[in-house]
């Protein structure tokens, strides 16, 4: 059977009116190893069907093979851009199983590291989005700032990408002595950089025109598809786990939750939940993360950074679930214990996977150039989709 016939049988009689375009798995802007089967009619797409699974590494299965603390480094690999969150979610779930009380200092360290990581992750997202729209210059700027965050995190936990910082019962290392002034200096520096970022790309006329009113996801649709995190908030749904179901040190902090407000402006056709809202909500979230880190540094508590945890972690028979607000939205872990040293089941629920589901519906009628922007605005990361 020739390839053309194969396409015809697979995609139906309609296929001869449209061009089937395989975008990926090796394509510069699919943000990792993802394939999109694009049904294109000229420049306009009928739909784009995402095909995931190229990066499946069976991380959840590994969780059943290694011990509870031994799984922690694997969680880094779930989302390499925001490894802190994957760490924290797993730690929280196991701590629930064990019924552990975490010392406040550890909770603050977790919050600080996570918020810094959130900024780093958003920077990559914003930079790649600008690059997908054709502006190459903002990307190195974003990466330059991410490097300075990596420096901070490296001073904190010794790693720049896969941090493996959080532990069941606390964090791996205490804050170094001279770290706090370094972090404050960086906070002041980054405030200015956010202004520069807005002048550089956020308020660039071409950029806003490209994204305004494009690939709009209304609130109802976002909820129906189970979107989480910035994608959900950009659709106008005011929901943030850090505020609505606070965990760790988050009840102590005051911060705003930016939601989509058609930032592109109605005169440009901006709508609540369009690509520009998703972009700009992330910029605003970076600012809020700075606020949280600042507050955490101001009232950084003394004490232990690790709870008393038995050498061998053997939770009683039972199950536990944890939910955290990760950079790509709500991340949930579900851990089942059968009383042994190893988990009976570990499952992770991630934001990128949920975001992939909505692409087929939203992409209908978009242009191919807009598909790239849509993928970028949903901020999907391939390993987080497949795990």
């Amino acid at each position, binding site marked *: 059977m020739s390839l053309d016939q194969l396409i015809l049988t697979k995609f139906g009689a309609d296929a001869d009116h449209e*061009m089937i*375009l395989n975008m990926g798995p090796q*394509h*510069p*802007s699919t943000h990792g190893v993802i394939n999109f089967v694009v049904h294109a009619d000229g*420049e306009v797409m009928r739909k784009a069907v995402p095909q995931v699974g190229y990066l499946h590494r069976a991380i959840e299965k590994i969780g059943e093979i290694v011990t509870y603390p031994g799984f922690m480094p694997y969680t880094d690999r779930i989302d390499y851009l925001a490894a802190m969150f994957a760490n924290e979610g797993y730690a929280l779930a196991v701590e629930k199983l064990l019924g552990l009380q975490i010392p406040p200092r550890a909770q603050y360290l977790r919050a600080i590291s996570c918020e810094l990581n959130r900024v780093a992750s958003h920077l990559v997202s914003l930079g790649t989005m*600008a*690059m*997908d*729209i*054709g*502006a*190459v*210059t903002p*990307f*190195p*700027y974003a990466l*330059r700032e991410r490097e300075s965050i990596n420096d901070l995190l490296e001073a904190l936990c010794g790693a720049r990408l896969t941090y493996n910082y959080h532990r069941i019962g606390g964090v791996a290392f205490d804050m170094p002595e001279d770290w706090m002034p370094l972090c404050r200096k960086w906070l002041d*520096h980054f405030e*200015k*950089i956010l*202004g*520069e970022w807005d*002048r550089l*790309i956020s308020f*660039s006329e*071409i*950029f806003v*025109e*490209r994204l305004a009113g494009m690939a709009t996801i209304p609130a109802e649709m976002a909820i129906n598809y189970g979107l989480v995190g910035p994608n959900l908030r950009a659709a106008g749904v005011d929901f943030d786990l850090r505020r609505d179901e606070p965990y760790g040190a988050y009840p102590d902090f005051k911060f705003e939750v930016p939601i989509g407000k058609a930032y592109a402006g109605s005169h440009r056709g901006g709508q609540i939940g369009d690509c520009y809202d998703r972009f700009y909500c992330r910029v605003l979230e970076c600012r809020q993360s700075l606020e949280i880190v600042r507050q955490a540094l101001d009232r950084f508590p003394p004490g232990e950074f690790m709870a008393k945890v038995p050498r061998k972690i053997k939770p009683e028979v039972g199950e536990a679930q944890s939910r955290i607000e990760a950079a790509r939205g709500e991340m949930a872990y579900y851990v089942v214990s059968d009383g042994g040293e190893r988990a009976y089941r570990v499952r992770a629920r991630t934001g990128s996977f949920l975001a992939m589901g909505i692409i087929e519906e939203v992409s209908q009628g978009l*242009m*191919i*150039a*807009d598909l*790239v922007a849509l993928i970028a605005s949903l901020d999907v990361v391939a390993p987080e989709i497949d795990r």
Partner: protein
Amino acid sequence: MKELLDNLILRWGHDPANWPSTQGVYLAGMMLAGVALTTFGAIFAGLLSWWERRVAARIQSRIGPNRVGPGGLLQFLADALKLIGKEDLIPSSSDKLLFRIAPYFVMTGFVLTFVVLPFGYRLSPSYMNVGLFYVVSITALIVVGILISGWASNSKWALFGGIRAAAQVVSYEIPAGMVILVPIIMAGSLNLHDIIRAQGGAPWDWFMFQTPMGYGAFFILFVSLLAEGNRTPFDLPEAESELVSGYNTEYSGMRFAYFFTAEWGGLWVSSALLTTLFLGGWQVPGVSIDTLTRWEAAHAVPWWFYLMSAAVFLVKVLALVNVIVWIRWTFPRIRVDQMMTLCWKYLVPIGMGLVLLEALTEVLSFQIFGEAAKGQAKPGSARDMLHLAFFLIAGVLPLTAFLMKTFKNIQLTGDRVDLSNW
């Protein structure tokens, strides 16, 4: 070119009209000029590739290529060597003949423009009296090559790129062709050298600052030439984040290099055209056209004038090229429908209006100023003062505002101008 060769033959002691070898000398001269200009195009494109990468690096707070030669200047030679050494890969499912010849169309369309483009006073191979028309028509060859390459590659990404390029270049040739009429009306000629001679050395004697129509026409032509040269924000045909690499996705080695030589060399063509039509071409400030005519009548054009005119022209062209490079590393890319909207809904009607207004102005100013409306304005005359006032409002004011804004932005970020690690 012919005059030059005739002079040469005269100096050798023969009469060009009767000497039997005249045609041979002509042929040799033409071939030499052809080789020289092609080489110039290629070397300029190579040097520009280095310059663009360095400028892009500065813009993106990187350093850029600085290993090969002083400041990385010879990087383009290393790149060229690498590209020559690569396998000339031809996809098995492609249309092999068309795939092979497509780069030559692009290259030919680019190189042939040098036949009429001036480099300085009397420095151009031909004084073709339809020079401008020739440039517009010969550059259309490039889109033929791009379309062929997109089709012959038998790759969907390349096809998208080719179709986009065809739609874009053909569309933008209309506003470009329209606003080119503005300097033609001003100068009353299609000959590129005559158009330059109708302008002056000082900025307010340039066509760009003589009338608001010339000012608008400059920007429309600038945008159209960006689009025709597939430069950001109109780089849709090779949008690397959407179409992998667009029409040249399947090309490698020297054929790929041809596309890029034509693209970077095309910047010279665009800038030289803009300089000629709107920015006074090779007119040296301080040497009025009357002085020049007097020198010509006495057959005593000083040698330094040739050099100065070439230098002035070079500086103007390079400044424009640099602006185009800045634009590429500053702006995002626009979408296909926005590209079409910009062309057909804005540039074409505005361009049309500018041409009509310019024709009207020309008639009116002839009514008001009489014979003084023709050619360059006399220094100190009412027409000259008018040009000067418009230059201050339209040229100096926006530039000052732009610079002030730039320095304010640098201060806001707490940054500083630093060229130490160049």
